[in-house]
């Protein structure tokens, strides 16, 4: 699904260089739930951004479903993101002027779905994250956990093969954090989506198929786990 080889990412130049990624090799298999752990500043967000074609690597190779994206022209990247990825952010990043349903619809429309189909599909997705009764609620009326569930529905909209999440539970209390992780990983498994989650939260590790630890821009440890179920 994703093949990363000898990946380097350097921010800045001259004396102010920061080597955020310094030779990362990593594979993400279709349908697996992979958790990225590591101390703050170790390069987790950078790795996720490069993987998600949001940030360009300094050197190395990134293949998404066999296609090399590391050398791709900047203006081709949005299309790759649109086709392959759903994103979940620590700060939710919902559109405050849109209802829960409209937030999901927007993602579906970006992916080419039209009017009533997008509307019905958005409602179905929200139902799956347990928000059937919040279709017309605005983000400001939702709790943090509910917002992140809307974000999960949005990330799954249009069936992207890979969902990338950067500390999706960091802004939530631990109970809603667990619920969110359970919903995210459960839905991804059911739909055969790969999920890469950056997290600090040891309690959510139970939902992982594999845990990758990074430090100083390098993978330092990989651990396969038995599936919870």
């Amino acid at each position, binding site marked *: 699904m994703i093949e990363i080889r000898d990946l380097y990412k350097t921010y800045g130049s001259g004396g102010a260089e920061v080597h955020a990624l310094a030779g990362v090799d990593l594979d993400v298999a279709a349908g697996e739930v992979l958790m990225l752990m590591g101390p703050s500043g170790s390069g987790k*967000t950078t790795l996720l951004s490069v993987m998600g074609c*949001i940030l360009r690597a300094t050197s190395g190779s990134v293949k998404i479903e066999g296609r090399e994206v590391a050398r791709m022209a900047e203006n081709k990247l*949005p299309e790759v993101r649109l086709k392959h990825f759903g*994103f979940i952010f620590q700060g939710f*990043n919902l559109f405050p*002027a849109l209802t829960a349903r409209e937030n999901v619809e927007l*993602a579906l429309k970006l992916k080419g779905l039209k009017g009533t189909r997008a509307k019905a599909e958005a409602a179905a997705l929200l139902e799956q994250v347990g928000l059937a009764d919040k279709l017309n609620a605005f983000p400001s009326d939702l709790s943090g956990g509910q917002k992140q569930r809307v974000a999960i529905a949005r990330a799954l909209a249009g069936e992207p093969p890979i969902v990338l999440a*950067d500390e999706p539970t960091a802004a939530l209390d631990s109970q809603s954090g667990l619920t969110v992780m359970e919903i995210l990983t459960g839905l991804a498994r059911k739909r055969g989506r790969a999920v890469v989650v950056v997290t600090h939260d040891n309690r959510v590790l139970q939902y992982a198929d594999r845990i990758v630890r990074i430090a100083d821009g390098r993978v330092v440890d990989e651990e396969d786990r038995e599936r919870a179920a």
Partner: protein
Amino acid sequence: MFKLAWKNLFHDRVRLAVTLVGIVFALVLILVQFGLFLSFLDTSANIVERSGADLWITAPKVPYVNGGPPLSEANRWKALAVEGVERVDRYILAWVPWKLKSGAIESVQVVGYNLDSGLGGPWNVVAGSVEDLRGEDTVMVDEIYKDLLGVTHIGQVFEISNRRARIVGFTRGIRSFTTAPFVFCSFKNAQNYGAGNLREDQAVYLLVKGKAGIALEALRAAVQAKVPELDVLTNAEMHGRTQTHWVFATGAGITTLMGAVLGLIVGVVVVAQTIYAATVDHIREFGTLKAMGASNGRIYEVILAQAAISGGMGYAVAIAIAAFIARGSEGGNAPIALPPEVAAGTLLLALAMCMGASVISIRKATRIDPAMVFRG
């Protein structure tokens, strides 16, 4: 994307209100000033426009229709001798004092024309008849100036240059560009009123009517050849000269045009500011859209749609206000013209103004780095 634009706009109602006030203010200013300008263009030379004459013979270099030294009637005979000339009428336009019942004096412009041809005479007569102007000391004025001239009804008698002036009718909508109203009467009466200080055998202008189907330029050249020391202008040329004098040389028209341009500048600045502020406020959303895979084009759609919606709504309010002002100004001395072409043109202008004001916002949006979405 249109939906997002629409919802974002209405999400922040205060900003929308500020934007709309700015747009409405700018558009009303533009419409009123431009409307004034149009009516200046119209009233400044309305007498010439409606004269019905083909050619005007004037003293050399007379800048506009309301002036000029006397011409000898001998020139009339010279012009009449030209092949293709149907008739040549003597004509007067000159300032004279009008005495109200109260004894106060108002300056008026007496228009003395040939009743037989009607060239340069009044139009839109709504009371009385031009035939009544054949009577001795009879005049006709416009309704608009009733108050100014102290006139209430037909049959009233006033004094022009210490001679009787009896009201025999009213016109409607014949405005004077200056503060001095037009007073229509026969050429003979105008002469009696001392208009232009003419001797018996003089005129201020000669109005030429060509035979049907005659080529205007050839006729002008032929008449000019007969009176080489005078100016011979087509009606259009006289119209243009008069318009140019009043609207541009006096600065009145430039002032209104500047007002309209000022409105445009105010509009662009206000709209650019509020749209830019809105873009900055929504920067995280635009970043999220980009991260989700939206191209720059989709982001521009949102910004431009916001601008277009604002422009359209502002226009709807502005045109209503402008129509109201225009209606209210109809009876006054400074009417505001609001023809459909201007109304339609202003809509395009409003949209262009708002879209143009979005340019800096679009540049800002182009530079948004989608990687921002993962940062705090």
